């Protein structure tokens, strides 16, 4: 058994690993095992750090208890202060006794079994962790919006702002590369398209476009009717599909070159 970093990262991961292992136990066993484990884990640390102190403390407690017992035998009467101090002493004694009992109940083998090797995070945890972080709030929001239309309205509005912010941020980031390629005004396209694809999946609203042939001419002035903030959303739908993803475009050109020799 090596004694080293008492509060180091290795210890923390060890605790996490223990908790993880406990999760796999059946529920009936879990609580008792948890209690045992935690007690062992914490007390081991206490003992190791304050071995001398604990020993001294225990002997002091014994002395106090003896004194109290003697007083009781001798009649147990005294002045108010004496009684008060007696009670305090008894209380300390009692709490000390509890601690002492706990200390005694730690099996010595448990002390030896502690390995100081830190548990490294596995690859699965690396994937599972973000999923858990996103998944839980998403699930809660989903259930909440199912439960009440009032909550759904606000959740969807918040999602609107968030996804619009995200997609316009993305569009803004795409601005520089697009500008360098010489297609500055495709920025709108990137933003609106992203917004539509994200938000339609989030809230389950679809837009069907009719008369697409009228929308393909260029240049012209498009005039739309403005009902609510959701118009930005269907605008994103209208912008779909004429765009070819650049790598695909390159592959297509390469293919046609190849086909034509």
């Amino acid at each position, binding site marked *: 058994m090596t004694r080293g970093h008492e509060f180091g990262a290795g210890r923390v991961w060890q605790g996490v690993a223990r908790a993880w292992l406990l999760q796999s136990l059946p529920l009936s066993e879990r609580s008792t095992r948890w209690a045992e484990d935690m007690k062992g884990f914490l007390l081991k640390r206490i003992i190791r750090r304050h071995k001398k102190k604990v020993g001294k403390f225990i002997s002091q407690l014994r002395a106090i208890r003896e004194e109290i017992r003697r007083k009781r035998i001798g009649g147990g009467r005294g002045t108010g202060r004496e009684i008060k101090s007696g009670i305090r002493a008894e209380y300390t004694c009692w709490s000390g006794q509890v601690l002492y009992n706990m200390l005694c109940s730690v099996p010595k083998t448990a002390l030896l079994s502690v390995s100081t090797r830190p548990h490294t995070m596995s690859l699965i945890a690396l994937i599972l962790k973000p999923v858990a972080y996103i998944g839980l709030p998403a699930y809660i929001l989903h259930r909440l919006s199912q439960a009440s*239309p009032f909550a*759904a*309205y606000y959740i*969807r*509005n918040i999602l609107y702002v968030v996804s*619009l*912010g995200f997609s*316009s*941020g993305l*569009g*803004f980031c795409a*601005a520089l590369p697009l500008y360098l390629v010489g*297609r*500055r*005004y*495709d*920025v*709108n*396209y990137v*933003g609106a398209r992203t917004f539509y694809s994200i938000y339609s999946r989030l*809230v*389950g*609203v*679809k*837009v*069907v*476009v*009719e*008369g*697409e*042939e*009228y*929308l*393909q*001419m*260029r*240049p*012209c*002035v*498009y*005039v*739309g*009717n*403005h*009902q*609510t*903030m*959701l*118009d930005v959303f*269907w*605008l994103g*739908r*209208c*912008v*779909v*599909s*004429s*765009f070819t993803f650049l790598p695909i475009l390159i592959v297509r050109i390469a293919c046609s070159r190849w086909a034509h020799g």
Partner: protein
Amino acid sequence: MLPVGTRMMAKKSLKYMPILGQFMVAGGAVWVDRGNSALAVRSLQAAGEEIKKTHTSMWVFAEGTRTSRPYHDIRPFKKGAFHLAIQAGLPIVPVVAENYWDVYHPGHFRSGTFKVRGATEFPSTHVSRSSDDSSTISASTCLHRRFDGGGCWRSRHTRSRADA
């Protein structure tokens, strides 16, 4: 579908929205000052010339503001879109969204589907170049009719037909 390289026209206050504003600036939006019509006209003229030069399209919500009602309704159009079209000599293409009151209106939001329809173009040559109000108004009423005849309205406006 709208071709890549379409710009937007938006009110000036949107410019200062946290992320959206920067994004729209990056996308080359045309900003219109709603309070000051002289300034607005000037910025539209500049925009028209630039559109002609860069060979791009422009998206305008011509009503100028939002109108959410349980039945279909279009407000009278503002003249900005027509000024722009005349300036750049471009045709106007109406794009209409169906009334989606049952999907979304303030205080109500549920999943669903609604239609958007593109209609035939309306050449800006129909609007006289003198840019006097009567001609733009007639053009806008003409467009209104086309919007109504878009065939995707659910309610009382279905009876009017598109013509010419």
